[in-house]
């Protein structure tokens, strides 16, 4: 079985634009959602929760083929994602030619696209409406997390949320 040889590129803005241009319905969650809302951290991958409808999965598969997506695996074997991978609530961790992309069927408490959409904010990114999970919810998820790195970053998220609210109140 072939294995990955080269270091993958990373252009998360282009990855995001590509998803929008492909007409994929998704919500940005995770570190990049925090970055978009002003949290000064650096993140290396794009985490999204996708809408698990037949039509959307077809669009997603077409996009994933276009960006040469393969599963991100410790053994670096080249395995392409399948439609069935995107139908469940599981997490599909991929490497693409635009950077790492984590496609999540659902996150904490089984929350998928429909459940998260009311908690998402809409931003205009390069001419497309892009849904991003709100910083308030990201903070709540971090508070519940048992991962040490999440606890470490929580204070930065909380402080950003506090300052953003304060700034909004004074505007």
């Amino acid at each position: 079985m072939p294995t990955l040889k080269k270091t993958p590129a990373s252009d998360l803005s282009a990855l995001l634009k590509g998803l929008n241009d492909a007409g994929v319905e998704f919500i940005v969650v995770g570190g990049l959602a925090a970055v978009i809302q002003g949290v000064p951290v650096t993140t290396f991958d794009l985490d999204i929760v996708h809408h698990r409808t037949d039509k959307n999965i077809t669009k997603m598969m077409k996009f994933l083929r276009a960006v040469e997506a393969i599963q991100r695996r410790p053994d670096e074997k080249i395995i392409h994602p399948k439609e069935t991978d995107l139908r469940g609530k599981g997490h599909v961790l991929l490497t693409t030619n635009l950077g790492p992309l984590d496609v999540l069927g659902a996150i904490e408490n089984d929350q998928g696209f429909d459940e998260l959409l009311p908690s998402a904010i809409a931003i205009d990114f390069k001419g497309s409406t892009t849904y991003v999970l709100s910083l308030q919810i990201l903070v709540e998820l971090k508070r519940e997390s048992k991962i040490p790195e999440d606890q470490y970053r929580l204070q930065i998220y909380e402080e950003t949320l506090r300052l953003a609210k304060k700034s909004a109140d004074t505007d």
Partner: protein
Amino acid sequence: MVTNQANNSTQIEVDIALIRLFLRMTPEERLLSNDKHIQTLLELQNAYTEKNASIRS
């Protein structure tokens, strides 16, 4: 971002000035900033890897 480790190991000092700077940017500017940071970090990692490889050879 994290300036100093405080006495309590679970507490960190948060760089408020850096947060304010980032909040003044648009979402698109923040994404581009993140991309630039990644590129810089990858270039530094590659330089470090090449340096180590040249020492070994």
